[in-house]
């Protein structure tokens, strides 16, 4: 089993930053999986097969966490011992919450209209990208983790919204 003295970044040989070289991460992920994956240990003893499954599971978990920018930011903040989810949602700025209400109304109105939903999805993606750019600045350049935690909380809202639009799109398709 992998000795997780190293964190996910170290596992893939990546600098501990929000901005990640995804191509390099993919390469490292594949290299490690080709060493530890259960397919390599089909004829091995039970102990090795078990160790292989546990290792491959942890490598998949590390990859999943670092691949998704929101999960990556949360993980990075956790490494800095900043608690993201600890504060209640009521601490969100009133302006942001109001915006959320508008978004939700827009999604409800667009229900069953795939085109309108797709447009909302694109708009949301742009807004999320702005927040991600902000995250990169606060995490990698300024080291302002309190600000980053606030942005992460906003993105958690937006990510949920994105999932809801996806569900609505699926329903509209069916």
């Amino acid at each position, binding site marked *: 089993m992998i000795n997780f003295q190293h964190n996910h970044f170290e596992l893939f040989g990546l600098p501990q930053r929000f901005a990640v070289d995804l191509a390099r991460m993919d390469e490292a992920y594949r290299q490690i999986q080709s060493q530890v994956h259960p397919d390599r240990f*089909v004829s091995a003893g039970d102990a090795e097969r078990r160790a292989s499954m546990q290792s491959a599971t942890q490598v998949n978990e590390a990859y999943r966490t670092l691949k998704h920018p929101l999960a990556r930011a949360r993980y990075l903040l956790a490494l800095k011992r900043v608690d993201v989810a600890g504060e209640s949602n009521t601490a969100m700025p009133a302006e942001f919450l109001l915006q959320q209400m508008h978004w939700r109304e827009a999604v409800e109105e667009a229900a069953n209209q795939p085109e309108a939903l797709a447009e909302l999805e694109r708009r949301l993606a742009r807004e999320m990208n702005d927040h991600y750019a902000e995250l990169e600045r606060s995490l990698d350049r300024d080291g302002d983790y309190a600000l980053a935690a606030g942005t992460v909380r906003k993105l958690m809202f937006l990510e949920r919204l994105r999932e809801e639009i996806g569900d609505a799109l699926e329903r509209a398709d069916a």
Partner: protein
Amino acid sequence: MALLQISEPGMSRAPHQHRLAVGIDLGTTNSLVATVRSGIAVVLNDAEGHALLPSVVRYFPDGSTAVGHPAQAELVCDPRNTIVSVKRFMGRGLKDVVHAENCPYDFLDSPGMVQLRTCAGVKSPVEISAEILRTLRARAETSLGGQLVGAVITVPAYFDDAQRQATKDAARLAGLNVLRLLNEPTAAAIAYGLDNASEGVYAVFDLGGGTFDISILRLSKGVFEVLATNGDATLGGDDFDHRVFCWIVEQARPAPLSDEDTRLLLTEAREAKEHLSSHSEARITARLGTGELIDNTLPLKTFAEVTRTLVQKTIAPVKKALRDAGLTVEDVNGVVMVGGATRMPQIQQAVAEYFNQAPLNNLDPDKVVALGAAIQADVLAGNRAAGDDWLLLDVIPLSLGLETMGGLVERVIPRNSTIPVARAQEFTTFKDGQTAMAIHVVQGERELVSDCRSLARFELRGIPPMVAGAARIRVTFQVDADGLLSVSAREASTGVEAAISVKPSYGLSDAQIAQMLQDSVAHSGDDAQARALNEQRVEARRMQEAVTAALAADADLLTPGELADIRAALAALVEVASGGDRGAITGALERVNKITEPFAARRMDRSIHQAFTGKKLEDMNI
């Protein structure tokens, strides 16, 4: 992409090192077995030269069976005891079986999985499937001239845990060592990708006799990565037959049909469907038991009309899979067609229209899955040199969740997570002094428990009595590389390992398997004792080889004391392996396993570090 390589003369492995491994496509309509011979994947034929084994099992009153063509030939005479499309019943309850009223079987709704009453007694779909697998195993062992080390068995990508477990149980019952359960579209991608040295994003559209899968894969050098999969485990060529059957009945309006006539007309319907793959109309003639004559002509256009909604049903899963992969139609470099049902012109056309490109049909859609499975079996059995193999990264098709208050589902592992995957969830007690807790695991995408597949009910017992909310029970869900779930639990605040009593909603207990094995041996002429001893010996040899190889590579990870202990345990294993005491071999195997555990962990850690050798130092630590 790893290309097929031909080793230089003299460099190839000695023949005795080649391990006999096969790929088996256990299909709804037909099943196949394939292997890699001299570096080339080939389907193994039966003595009469047939590649396809019809997935048909006939039971006789004395308990004997006929499998394949002979069973199919007598289908109309003995519909009740001749089981077709048994795959549709695997891991399914009676209420899940679509069109059960049209099947001429005597169903028995038993908990978890439906069973069938035949003249040879009550049979579970697992036993019936095992008959098919046993026939294929015998075919392979005759053809290859030796005992198999194992088999890769394919399952529809959209099969849930219950269906996968049932398939694995059937293989065990048939005396097969399952190297891996492999998703059918992934198997097809392996056969296709290696053949064409393809790179890029591919969609595999797999419409079989009873199941539909769509998988989106990224093929790049040495890696097959499944990005997303979706499908419909109750949609296939059988449904098209059924539509044609209904059309025939509607046209002719015969008197109520007997079981024999239903079977006859379903067979006529299937033949008409197959005929229409290459003709513009099909004539349907049949003489019913009542003497009534059916004579009709089905034009291709009408066939397309009566099956339009079925064709449409394939497109929604395609859209979902692309969405989950984060891709659009434009990103797809090619669409591979798999499964006999993709020969239907209306399917070809719908796929071409949706993807905006002509689908790829250059491999036989009936054989491509078995060929891919054989190639993967060859790799898993270790017949390929390092560097000449590839990595396969597959996903879990359906989300796993837990029942929470009010019958709602809490998702624990989302669909399309790369396997193996594990997730832990913490629970706490609701009442003071509570010492037990019930947990219900479900699989599916719906919000209500009642709309999902119930996988298992667990009871956690032996929780130390504490005030409500103080206990921290950590339940871990592990999905292995076969896509199968296991669950473990412990109380975190005290470290007490909570006892789990598993009540699977499906699947067979070891005792049931043992009983079925005994029953089947009575009719197969197999010597179970001799076979079991032989299997343990093979296992002992496999273990000895594996540990010896590990020691040769990494003995420096061990202290002299540890090394001596492992050598002693190995020597003991070799000693008993030549004898006839099966229990002693099992015991010696267990000791080797136990004693090599820390060694295995250290080797895994070293592997990871070695994955980075060659990287610049400054890249490593920033």
